[in-house]
């Protein structure tokens, strides 16, 4: 009976009901009616359930943070010490130790150690001891996972000067992170230099200058590139691009930073294109109309009015592109050559942080220093991309709010 319904706002304040949109008001009235019938609790219950499920995304981010951090926390707190594994384990003592400890000592995967019989283990330990005795190395007393060793150059035994070295499988494991992140940044910057101009020009053309039919063709085709799995791009770089570029430019190393960057640029173009195109299309058409009415050409109105208006969105597109470039794994793993060389040359191989994780984690014994260093790399990558994502997200939300505010005020005046 609608006549008996009371608007709650009305009765509570005694004031005139404020102007609310019809569906909201209807909902309030219906809810009151339902409450009287005693059915509202079920609606509330389901709504609460929906709310709880929607928190999953937050939990997922938190869990990623916690569980990647958990595996590398002992390293951050300085509880891991590679020098300890340099202590001699006598073959007699080897039987009492756990497979994990032996795996670290023998630098073998745990899975290989576990099924071995005690006698075989004794032999392995004995030969390891002989190996250590044959090559006495003062470096083995070092804790190679301490912060200075991870970040600063060090003069190792067989080197003539202090260098940044990532060499986790050598007799003395060298875990300097600088070559990996240098490689990541080098590839990311080079690929962005290719992808950003191309995708922004295409985005500006498609959203502002192209005719309707051209847009309908060009946009989905470029977006189709986003559907190409990165392993396919990596494969293409490895099989086809590498040989083609070597033939074209005549450089020495077949798989190098340049090849990986070109393939990575292909992965970045649809990402940057889509976000920039969205931002440009969100700028109200009236801006352009006004500029056109003042005598500006289509091109002039685009570069002086539309592009500046969408500028934060374009900036966000580049940030997200950078995050994608730093985090891309399969392309760089397959095409960069994977040698951790600290060289400014773009025609040299390099190893990125992501490729190091992908290539080495399977061989790193669980809970070994190597395993923890790889998780530390992952943690650093996560933090870098997280900060970039939050930054881009804030920019995009602000831009959207501003442009929507402009649109509604325009609609109000018209």
């Amino acid at each position, binding site marked *: 009976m609608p006549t008996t319904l009371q608007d709650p706002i009305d009765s509570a304040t005694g004031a005139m009901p404020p102007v609310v949109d019809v569906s909201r008001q209807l*909902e309030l009235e*219906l809810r009151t009616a*339902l409450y009287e019938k005693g*059915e509202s609790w079920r*609606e509330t219950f389901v*709504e609460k359930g*929906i709310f709880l*499920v*929607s928190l*999953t*995304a*937050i939990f997922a*981010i938190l*869990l*990623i943070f916690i*569980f*990647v951090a958990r*595996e590398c926390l002992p390293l951050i707190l300085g509880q891991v010490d590679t020098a300890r594994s340099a202590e001699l384990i006598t073959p007699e003592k080897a039987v009492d130790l756990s497979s994990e400890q032996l795996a670290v000592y023998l630098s073998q995967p745990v899975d290989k150690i576990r099924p071995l019989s005690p006698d075989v283990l004794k032999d392995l330990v004995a030969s390891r001891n002989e190996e250590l005795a044959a090559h006495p190395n003062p470096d083995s007393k070092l804790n190679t996972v301490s912060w200075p060793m991870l970040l600063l150059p060090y003069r190792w035994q067989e080197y003539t000067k202090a260098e940044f070295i990532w060499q986790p499988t050598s007799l003395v494991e060298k875990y300097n992170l600088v070559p990996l992140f240098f490689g990541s940044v080098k590839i990311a910057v080079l690929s962005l230099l290719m992808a950003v101009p*191309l995708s922004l*020009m*295409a985005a*500006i053309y498609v959203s502002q*200058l*192209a005719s309707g039919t051209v847009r309908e063709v*060009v946009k989905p*085709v*470029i977006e189709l*590139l986003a*559907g*190409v*799995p990165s*392993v396919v791009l*990596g*494969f293409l770089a490895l099989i*086809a691009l590498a040989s083609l570029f070597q033939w074209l430019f005549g450089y020495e190393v077949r798989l190098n930073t340049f090849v990986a960057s070109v393939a990575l640029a*292909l992965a970045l173009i649809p990402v940057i294109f889509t976000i920039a195109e969205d931002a440009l299309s969100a700028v109200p058409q009236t801006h352009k109309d*006004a*500029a056109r009415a*003042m005598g*500006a*050409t*289509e*091109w*002039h109105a685009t570069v002086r*009015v539309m592009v*500046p*208006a969408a500028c934060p969105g374009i900036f966000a597109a580049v940030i997200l592109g950078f995050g994608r470039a730093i*985090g*891309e794994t*399969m392309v760089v*793993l397959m095409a960069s050559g994977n040698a951790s060389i600290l060289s400014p040359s773009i025609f040299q191989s390099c190893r990125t942080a992501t490729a190091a*994780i*992908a290539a080495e984690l399977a061989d790193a014994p*669980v809970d070994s220093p190597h395993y923890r260093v790889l998780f530390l790399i*992952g943690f650093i*990558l*996560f933090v870098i991309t997280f900060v970039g*994502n939050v930054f*881009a*997200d804030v920019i995009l939300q602000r831009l959207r709010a501003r442009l929507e505010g402009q649109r509604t005020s325009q609609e109000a005046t018209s």
Partner: protein
Amino acid sequence: MSAIPQSDVSGQPLDLTSAPTLSQTTLFTALFRSVAFFLVGVVALLVAYIFSQGFHGLNPSFLFGSATSQDSSGMFDVHNAGVFEMVFGTILLVFLMTVLVMPVGVISGIYLNEFSDPNAWTTRIIRSAVNNLAGVPSIIFGLFGLGFFVYFIGGSIDDYVLHTASPVFGKPAVIWAALTLAVLTMPVVVVSTEQALRSVPLPLRDAALGLGATKLQTLRQIVLPQAAPGIITGGILAVSRGAGEVAPIMFTGAAYYLAHLPQSITDQFMELGYHIYILATQSPNVDRTRPLLFATVVVLLLLTFLLNLIAILVRAWTRHRMRSYRA
């Protein structure tokens, strides 16, 4: 009070005296157009190259053949490997992933579009978390899947529920890979669901509410059926994304080689994308595996492109319906 917005966003008045000349305008427009068409050309060339190289390799013995050598040893046969196990593994993986991701993703999308107050801080954090999840590098999902699903969840099940010494759940398995991919593809589903719900006209809801339906009744009987094609599109896009990801499943379940198909959800599996990586990087004789490799890539591309194509068509149809409703 003037509601007229400041028309110039850059804060500078539009200076017509320094306007580009007509020839500059033509030049730059032509340049931008050629860049756009260049990219289209690159995509076309790329697809044409892969298909031309790999298409003739698509014979029944390849598609339905096993990776195990038929003639002698029963070992992994890199040079003649069929892809049956990989296609099976990929389909099993994305099926499990879809079952896991759809309910959570769709309900999150429903909350964001139907129930949330857009200005509340909870809404902003959820939205920001979804966007952030979309930007986390895929290899981090691999680390997370290994640390959380395999060692923490799986290890706990082994220790406290099954009390087994040899790991059953605490090792890489198809269920953990599927869960990892479900977390990775969740933003795709959430965003598509939101878009689909937003495209359902408001008057339809008002009419239902006006007839006395409750909010949930309106949602279930009016809004969701209308939004269904868009929501399914989200699922398809998630499947297409999941089918192509390799980095997250490398440590959480994909196997280099298995002689049999996965028997249960705690088994490992072979997967198309990972198989491509193995064939391309581990083969002793690249020239011999080359045709096989291209054919495998074509199978993976057909799978992802077909799914993308369906998604694009469904989306175009929804947009068309929306436009006709407005008109």
